[in-house]
């Protein structure tokens, strides 16, 4: 199944609902305010990142190395 894009998760409330679904915890009003601020910042960052044009060939800066103990050491 394809991942949902951040646009689908979109607004802060959707992310907060998602967070509540993955973590069972009661937040104080202060914590909730702090959390909302951080979710807003995440969403702003995602919007800014989406402004950088990427092509299909633009790979992430992650290099997977197939493993062989006698070659890799550990």
């Amino acid at each position, binding site marked *: 199944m394809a991942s949902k894009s*951040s646009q689908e998760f979109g607004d802060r409330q959707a992310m907060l609902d998602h967070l509540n679904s993955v973590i069972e915890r009661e937040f104080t009003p202060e914590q909730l305010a702090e959390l909302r601020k*951080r979710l807003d910042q995440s969403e702003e960052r995602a919007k800014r990142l989406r402004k950088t044009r990427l092509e299909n060939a633009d*790979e992430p800066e992650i290099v997977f190395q197939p493993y062989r103990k006698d070659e890799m050491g550990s």
Partner: protein
Amino acid sequence: LSALAFTTIPELGRMIRSGQVSPVQLAEEALERLDSIGRSLNAVVTLTGELALEQARQAEDELAHGVDRGPLHGIPYGAKDLLSTAGIPTTWGMEPFRSQVFAEDAAVIERLREAGAVLVAKLAMVEGAGGFGYEQPDAALTGPGKSAWNPDAWAGGSSSGSGSAVGAGCVPFAIGTETWGSILLPAAFNGISGFRPTYGTVSRRGAMALSWTMDKIGPMCLTAQDCATVLGTIAGRDPGDPTTRQGWFEPPAAAGGELRIAVLRGGAGNAQAEVRANFEASLDVLQTMGTVHEVDLPDFPWDETASTIITVEGAAAFEEFIRAGQNEQLTAPEDRVGLLEGLVIPAVDYLRAMRVRRKGTRAMDDLLAGFDVIVAPSAAFVATPLQDRFDSWFEGSQGPSLGAAGNLCGLPSISVPNGFGERGLPTGLELMGRAYNDGRVLAVAMRYQELTDWHTRRPRQGSGAAA
């Protein structure tokens, strides 16, 4: 002043080998200074007295029998408390880990032990290396780190204790770590030299993980030359950290000839007046070493990319801790919800950040290929008042800086003292280079320190004033 305080590594080495001072005396003096001055600055988590005296006695005995392990033999040091030490608590600066004890030493601790260095303390740090998003100095289980120059000013973070312990002359060197600013900022705020190596130069085995692709380990010392000495010992391939390679770090050759120095355009634009003036004076010195060229960073969302990666990797590294609600026990109230947002950032956003990062690293290398170093103020301001929250200092109108781009691209960088600013607090000059040019960056910093004496200035003990 004592024999130990503010004495550089080569000077201490000469004193040890000439019999002026013994490793045991140095260890005892370091322990004493850490217990008094260090604790008053909230720089100490654990004094490792028993181990230190054992290691110092061994160093002394070996030298007496003609065994010399090199420049760090018998030299005391402190380690940021996120580096594991066998049988000694490693708290990560976090209350829930106050009693955490590992069975093995981190790779860095191993290497320093093999080089004959003497571990005297586990040094204070911001909880979780600052990854939980702290917004004020009081975010560590040992209390807010205080600058060696003024106990009413912050020591910087997250390697707070490493910075202030060296700055106050408690140890000649310390080990810090940086994911984004955690070596360079405390180095600047404590008037010392702090070096961030190229990512992968120093093994992360046994170090707390915050961001696997951005965490770096480096030396914090009195001089750039001492940073080179320590880095020469701790750098190198370690099978326990697959990102390390052999031969990346070459000791600095003299930075002779005409250097090409880039200056970050606008880097000092929004800085405090003294920071700007000191930076301009530094440029005058650098101009005697070569040609200076103003440049812009490539246009990338550096801050956003770095933040996204650290938040997601940090949330993954601490997922069990967060899910178990243990973050409720952290010191700073804002940290108690820190990294939660990382649990719900879509994977595609993280991967987008890593794709942007790949393009960014190449653009940065294109820029830096033409220069020995790029320079900017280490921070736009001196150490902030201890009671101040960060939002008034770190957010908003700081202007361009090298921090996010340099850390995202894993580039080597150093902060060296370059003067004094408000309230007599030290200011710093950052010199950053191309990937794997660690030796070159250190060589340029060493040449700068040959031409200046800011790195020889010391705080007056107890007075909290510049001297």
